[in-house]
């Protein structure tokens, strides 16, 4: 990725709208949350067709605006990288950073896993039916394309998954988990 090819600025309306819609699938009001937390959503447009979205404190945005010229070529990242979207906003990919915003604020679109399933999931593996404690589905058909939020019995987010049936049994396919912080090798 690395150096942002376009300087992160407050996200345009259509991006914020797409993100708010994605987060609402999990029962979270994104606009309310970022206002409460004094967070700004910053968008950087990469050379291809993606928009990288960062959540940063308001004062970070002020600093970036004030020191724009010196930071233009050297800025690496700002705040937490929460999502990636196609430029039109049609497809939203929520990243591990998004779990931070969702922590304690989600009420649907999640699955609770337990026991060995937690370990397996954090090792990048799928979770079998016997490790699924419960599920709270999405309440809108528009959300069905989104991954489910995978959490443990304490309702602490562990990552993203997809619900599937394998051999007639329910399985949570691993999409992205917190173990990636170690496995990525950085």
């Amino acid at each position: 990725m690395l150096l942002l090819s376009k300087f992160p600025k407050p996200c345009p309306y259509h991006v914020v709208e797409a993100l708010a819609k994605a987060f609402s699938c999990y029962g979270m009001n994104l606009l309310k949350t970022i206002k409460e937390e004094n967070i700004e959503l910053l968008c950087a447009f990469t050379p291809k067709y993606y928009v990288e979205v960062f959540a940063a404190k308001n004062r970070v945005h002020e600093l970036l605006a004030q020191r724009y010229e010196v930071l233009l070529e050297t800025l690496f990242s700002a705040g937490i990288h929460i999502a990636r979207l196609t430029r039109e906003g049609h497809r939203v990919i929520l990243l591990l950073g998004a779990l931070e915003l969702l922590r304690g604020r989600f009420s649907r679109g999640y699955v609770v896993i337990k026991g060995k399933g937690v370990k397996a999931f954090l090792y990048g593996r799928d979770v079998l039916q016997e490790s699924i404690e419960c599920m709270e589905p999405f309440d809108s058909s528009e959300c069905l394309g989104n991954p489910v939020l995978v959490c443990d019995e304490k309702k602490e987010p562990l990552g993203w998954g997809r619900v599937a049936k394998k051999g007639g049994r329910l399985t949570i396919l691993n999409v992205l988990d917190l173990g990636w912080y170690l496995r990525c090798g950085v």
Partner: protein
Amino acid sequence: MASHYNTLLRLAKKHLEVLKKLRVAVKELASKSELQALAKKLGVHADQVARYYLLWGDEDEVVRFFQAKPPPKSIRVNTLKTSVDELVERLSRKGVKLRRSDLVPYGLIVEECPYTSLAALHEYLKGMFHIQGLASMLVVPQLEPEKAEVVADLCCGAGGKSTQIAQHNPSSPVLAMDCNERKLLALKLHASRLGVYNVVAVKDDARRVYVYGPFDRVLIDAPCTGEGLRPFPGKAKPRSFEDVVSRVELQVELLVSALLALSRPGILVYATCSTAVEENELVISTVLKVFKNVEVVEPSIPVGERCIAEYGPLSFEGEVELCRRLYPHKQGLEGFTIYKLVLQ
């Protein structure tokens, strides 16, 4: 600004001529047969034994330093996500034995851990703690980050101290600079894991920090020989005098640029994981000769020793003593030297 920086640097570097005198003294001492024998016994370079003999004048102390055991592992509770009590309870249930640190309220010493790595714990992945040495944790509070408007963390590496600053002050921006892209990527991931929204990572040579200023707080965890980390596996490298002083110029350059970037009033903390006088007292003394409006304030750290006034043929102004030196063989912590400078 660049020409002002270059002028100050030129003036400062003239004062580094004293290194020639020091080199003669070290080499002379290092050539003595008893010190050479001691160096061989300890598995270190004779120059190192000579330098620490110059520091203490006591062979037994030198031996204790080079044979120090590694300090115990420690972790920093991420108080943005959890409390010390909660984390102790959670980890204790998993068989991890922890002891609270007397020195840092959110520091925990790991006495026993049944896992191969602390990073394998789910609480680590959830961002509830960061693995960090206790001596390293003592640096950030000296910056008084709670009252800061804008902070610069130079040579930030993977962001251990940047995220610690954010823990003290989750709102004010922290500009974390490093020239190593891989480390900045690690910093970006740590910020995400620890839930830190106010760190801005910048890929640039930290000697250019004066371009990015002003800042009312600047932290320099300067690139150094890491002599204070000797007890750790893989860190005990034999170092010649030339090796030790090879970073001194860079350290002076960083400090000069950082002071130019500091607003008034401002606080700068200069720290190294090194116990080498060349990388600490000498650097501070050199820069103080060209910055007359900088005051050295004694860090409020209840352990450790003050810095050195005399070192072989060198003697330093009184205020240069006002730092904290930490040694593995004395305080049971990583070797660190910490200075707090205030710009009036």
